[in-house]
């Protein structure tokens, strides 16, 4: 599971550039801050490698296994 916090994102594109599986793409959408956040285009290829989270300077992207509700 990949979650992007659009309030924290500054639209730098590092997560997109360093994703080895092309899971992310910069979107055309404009946030309240006036920036283009990334969007998830290909979640099934995500290996949870962690690069996007590691290189996001603004803690705006989180990956993790989706917790199952029992």
């Amino acid at each position, binding site marked *: *599971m990949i979650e992007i916090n659009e*309030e924290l994102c*500054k639209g730098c594109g590092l997560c997109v550039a360093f994703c080895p599986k092309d899971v992310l793409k910069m979107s055309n959408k404009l946030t309240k801050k006036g920036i283009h956040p990334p969007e998830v285009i290909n979640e099934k290829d995500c290996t949870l490698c962690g690069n996007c989270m*590691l*290189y996001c*300077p*603004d*803690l705006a992207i989180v990956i993790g296994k989706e*917790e199952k*509700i029992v």
Partner: protein
Amino acid sequence: MKIVHPLIKYVRPGFLSTTNCAGCGNGIIAQSILRAVDELEMDIDDFVFVSGIGCAAWIPSPFFNADVLHTTHGRPIAFATGVKLSNPKLRVMVVSGDGDLVAIGGNHFIHAARRNIDLTVICANNGIYGMTGGQVGPTTPSGLKTATTPYGNLERPFDLPNLAKAAGAVYVARWTTYHARQLTKSIKRAVQKKGFSFIEVISQCPVQFGRRTGAGNAVTMMQNYKKNSVSIKKVDKLKENELKGKIIVGEFIDREEPELCEEIAKMRERIG
């Protein structure tokens, strides 16, 4: 369902947004420090983070929910020395910029290393005075056109790891923001090391460095760090011309030397 960022718990409530421009390496360094604290399973309240003036000085302050001492330009090591000597149990980490630590603060830097006082010093080296508009500094690469060197920088930059090593530091490493995983590991080592530990992080300033000098945006700058880095373990095998323009990364030294606070404690015992 929401997943919570594992490092949010270390961020001061109300200060979630960093002070950095988009893509600034400072955020990657901030995260690497917090990840190291988290992986070491240490209490962030046992730390005191000390910074000076400049963009990099905002890495811990007010972002980290811990004791943070935001001091005057060039002086964080002097303040940190006082904190450590007054309470040697505290883990004291200095996080600041290249201008702050080795231009105006250069003397504090070499003398703290010489004294071997137990501090962890992390220098976010963007090769420039970021905050004040991109002026040349003692870490700016030769030849570079900056706001104050329109015809190119005529001076040579400091080699910070070798400066720290020669001055007496017991642990020295250099990484770039591309090496965030190795950087985290190094910070863990530096925190656990008794004595003066120094880590240089080559870090992108896409605004005052990238835009003005033609180094490009944050993505280009980090891709170049990846391309141009050479491990210190491979340096001996390379010729001088092969090392031109390369960033040597890795651990430069890891040695044991008497540490100042421990020597003071021993002296106290001796003189009664």
